[in-house]
């Protein structure tokens, strides 16, 4: 069983809309009053402290318990999602209980390959409403845990309806997604 802490960079967040955080020029000149005025914002935002795909976000403040091996994924609290080509099995649950609508929540995610937790992988998580044509409004952060799992913080599915959760697993140069439907 692989339990080694991973050293690979941990990618953050969203893939569905591509370069969501690319700062774009305003469609119109910025005006004052309600819309305010001031120097161009894009230049100022260049120094904006933000999680970048190459960054490794700090682990959550809570101290993880000593590694005790993967949980029993046959427990109904877990959702098991095979990746598209069947290389990986992504198992996830919301530790706080049911996935809430329009509230922040965290996920615990395990990526299994050949039945064992996968080390040296990079995981990113996104959400998408295919019938509405939009995704998440904030980027979840993915934190590798010492026990081989991932902790995903800052998830929020803001609307009721049909969601697709997408777990992108990157192992070396190979990427494979696992998609999961969710009704809120």
């Amino acid at each position: 069983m692989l339990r080694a802490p991973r050293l690979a960079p941990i990618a953050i967040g969203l893939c569905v809309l591509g370069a969501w955080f690319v700062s774009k020029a305003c469609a119109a000149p910025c005006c004052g009053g309600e819309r305010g005025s001031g120097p161009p914002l894009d230049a100022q935002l260049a120094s904006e402290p933000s999680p970048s795909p190459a960054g490794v976000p700090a682990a959550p403040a809570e101290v993880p318990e000593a590694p005790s091996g993967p949980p029993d994924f046959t427990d109904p609290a877990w959702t098991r999602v095979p990746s598209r080509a069947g290389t990986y099995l992504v198992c996830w649950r919301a530790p706080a209980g049911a996935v809430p609508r329009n509230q922040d929540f965290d996920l615990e995610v395990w990526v299994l390959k050949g039945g064992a937790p996968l080390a040296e992988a990079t995981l990113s998580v996104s959400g998408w409403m295919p019938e509405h044509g939009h995704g998440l409004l904030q980027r979840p952060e993915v934190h590798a845990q010492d026990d081989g799992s991932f902790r995903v913080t800052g998830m929020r599915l803001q609307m009721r309806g049909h969601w697709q959760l997408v777990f992108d697993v990157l192992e070396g140069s190979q990427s494979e997604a696992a998609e999961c439907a969710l009704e809120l």
Partner: protein
Amino acid sequence: MKLALLLALALQSPPSGTPPAAGDARRILLELSPVPAPPPDPTNAVYANPAAALLGQALFYDARLSADGTVSCATCHQPGKSWTDAKPIGFGLASVSRHTMTLWNVAYNRWFFWDGRKDTLWSQALGPLEDAREHGTSRLAILHLLAEDADYARAYRQIFGALPELAQLPHEGRPVAGEPEHPQQLAWDTLDVETQEAVTRAFVNVGKAIAAFERLLVSRDAPFDRYVSALRSDDAAGSAAYDARARRGAELFVGKARCVFCHDGPSFTDLEFHDNRVPVGELGGDPGRKLGVKRLKLDPLNSRSVYADDGGETGKRKITQLVVDSHGGKSFKTPTLRNIARTAPYMHEGQFATLEDVVHFYDTLENATPEIGSERLIQPLGLSAEERAELLAFLESLTDESLPPELLAPPPAASLGR
């Protein structure tokens, strides 16, 4: 003609025998009421402090918090007009660029202004004070007022401690982004950094007091709430007391008309932003949320700043993980529908004069802007005239303007800080 027909339909006596909502509609309707207690605000240590709310109420109604003594918060947020001004575009010292949003249930908001460029209620309250087209005053002028007014000074001291030492400071002055030669900025520059910090902190306290007052403006006892209460307890008589047309309108709201996707939860808003494809107003060119996110991230008074009473903890995730542009279009905040029948005109530039116009637009998408971004939520509904009237009856049933009368005017000055 269209309006006359809709009104005529809405005024007809309701047909009998309409059953209470059932199935999915019932389940969703139960999620829309009751209105819970407002959530705590960890960024504002005095959010639930009655003395702070009283001070905030006095400041809210005080036109001395403006450059020429004519504009108060209540100029645009009038209690007699459901906390709006009934104008398409707000007007303080001059015209601004968007419609005034109501303050009903503002305590439940996640973001503030149509573009969400503020993320706390206290920070929102501070913006108009220093906007040249609204109050046009400055943080130094406001603090001098507080120091010179014995009632304010007493109340401030009781709640927040001593004001900064102001005797040697200019009577006007504030930071003016991008305008180093602005007289207000030049005056601000005469302060050392420590003094600037102390003045800004006291100015922030003014916003926190106003926020404590605004949190009290909660609407929660509309006919719809009484209907849901009856629905929840299977009270057939109670359900039957709710207008039958509004009852069917409620089912349309959560069903065929698809309103609930955005107008969700007890405040009837998902708290977020959408490109609802409304015709561009006369001002045009408004980038909405796209610019709002950028401004929020750079705002020195945002929720991850040192001025947040939780040390910026809430704001770290809220702002850092926020995406600049989630839909690609021009998105604006979903407004609450509480008291929506009392807050005309509608939309971010007051494009629609009546609720009938709003329902007609969503029904037909007449003159809608093209789909620019990826969001495909807004589609023609194909409602009948009767269904439109039912939706209107439902929206009317979200009306509850009852508040303790003492909130509708300034408090007695002598009550401050007592």
